[in-house]
């Protein structure tokens, strides 16, 4: 479903044109309905890897395929169609500041052209799943970091995407809440959704017993089927 072939990503800093190698010759393949965790120190390239799958960034070298589409070469006009198959929990949430929690989630369904009654039914339900029915009419600035994160998670699930990219989705949650979210991701994975999770949380990785990709300074140093958290 997703495959990286010798992918490198180099950034140029805005000041001084220094090169930063965020990813270096990374190759792997993810099959449909897999649950894959990505671990690595801060700055190892986890977010960059997810950005490449979402085609927010294009690879400097190598090729990335998503369902047969070459993401390095695809036209920007074709991206919405691909992105609708993906639900993303961004590390910095990326909620729309001018919309309420409810509207942020509803926006995804509106963008894919869902019917009004479907929106009215599904949005409250998913808000219930992340435990935030009472915050439906709050704007992002009125929410705590953990609440924003949960709205971001709800938004990523609402349209039942084929793939979920979760970039440290439990970073701002207490252990109980974090566990609930991971259980939720596992449940979604069981019904056939591919889940790609980037995390710092050793506990979670060790409990999951799923495939783990370990990044170190942009390079893929381990790819284990039943992985553990080793940095």
């Amino acid at each position, binding site marked *: 479903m997703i495959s990286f072939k010798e992918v490198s990503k180099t950034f140029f800093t805005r000041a001084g044109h220094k090169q930063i190698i965020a990813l270096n010759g990374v190759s792997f393949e993810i099959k449909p309905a897999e649950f894959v965790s990505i671990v690595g120190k801060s700055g190892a390239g986890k977010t960059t890897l997810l950005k490449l799958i*979402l085609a*927010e960034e294009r690879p400097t070298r190598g090729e990335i395929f998503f369902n047969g589409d070459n993401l390095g070469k695809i036209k*920007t*006009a074709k*991206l*919405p*169609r*691909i*992105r*609708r198959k*993906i639900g*993303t929990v*961004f590390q910095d949430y*990326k*909620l*729309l*500041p*001018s919309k309420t929690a409810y509207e942020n989630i509803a*926006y*995804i369904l*509106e*963008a*894919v*052209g869902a*019917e*009004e009654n479907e929106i009215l039914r599904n949005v409250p339900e998913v808000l219930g799943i992340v435990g935030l029915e009472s915050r439906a009419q709050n704007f992002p600035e009125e929410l705590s970091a953990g609440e924003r994160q949960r709205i971001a998670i709800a*938004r990523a699930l609402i349209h039942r995407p084929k793939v979920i990219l979760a970039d440290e989705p439990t970073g701002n949650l207490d252990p109980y809440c974090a566990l609930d979210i991971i259980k939720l991701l596992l449940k979604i994975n069981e019904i056939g959704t591919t889940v790609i999770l980037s995390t710092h949380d050793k506990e979670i990785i060790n409990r999951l017993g799923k495939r783990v990709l370990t990044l170190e300074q942009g390079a893929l140093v381990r790819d284990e089927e039943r992985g553990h958290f080793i940095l």
Partner: protein
Amino acid sequence: MLTSLKRIIYFGWKDFYSSLGLSLATCFILVIVIFLITSLFLLKGLSEHLIASVREKADITIFLKGDSSEEDILKLKEELVKMPEVKEVEYVSKEQALEKFTKEHKDEPEIMRALGLFDNPLWSSLNIKAFEAAQYPSLVSFLENSSPSNLIAEVDYPQRKLLIEQIFGITEMVKRAGIIISFILAVIAILVAFNTVRLAIYNSREEIKIQRLVGASNWFIRGPFIVQGAIAGFFSVVFSLFMILGIIYFLGPKIGFFLSGFNLLSYFLANLGTIALIQLATGVGIGVISSYIATRKYLDV
């Protein structure tokens, strides 16, 4: 498709009033631009009126021999009226000329006494106006060489040549300068308005990027901005129309003296359709087109 359109319009309207301050600032600039462009249109009407009334003063007179019959003169007049260069011909008979002369000089007894010695010494004449200064020479040569030349005593063209050419030359220059200045002002105004819309959309660049990343199509993202631009344009047009009408209504009579007989209000009302169309094209056009262009830059993630 229809649901998407409905949502786009709804979002546009909602964004318009949820950032009312910014929207009104945009409207304010649009009103200024519409006001300027409408003023240019009205000025065009005024200057055409003034130019025409100045050009009225350019004419030549042919004096006809005393023994020419009225019938021949009217025939010559008919012939002249048919010529494409000729705008207007006025026949002044001997009697009319005398009447006019007496009126003008009634306070000068010497002249009147001298006039009394003769039995109407004045000539009848034809007063001719052409469309262009350049047409007078050919007109004159036609008169001198054609069949009815035996009727003609004198043409005053040589004396008036310079004046006619100056009148036409200056008015032509004024006309051209007007067009160029209007064009430059309109371009500047449109650029200012475009920039205002661009800045308003610059504030939303992060939001546009997020919308792209979660899979919204370009039209779904851009649509609300275009709707907002159209709404701002439409409100600005309605406001400008009433504002300008008010200004003309209350100020028109006071400045009537400077307009030398040009009735601003009736010109405005007579051209209301054109003016409303120009305003809509300016207001809504700028709103829509600049929203379209300004969003394009942020849609390429």
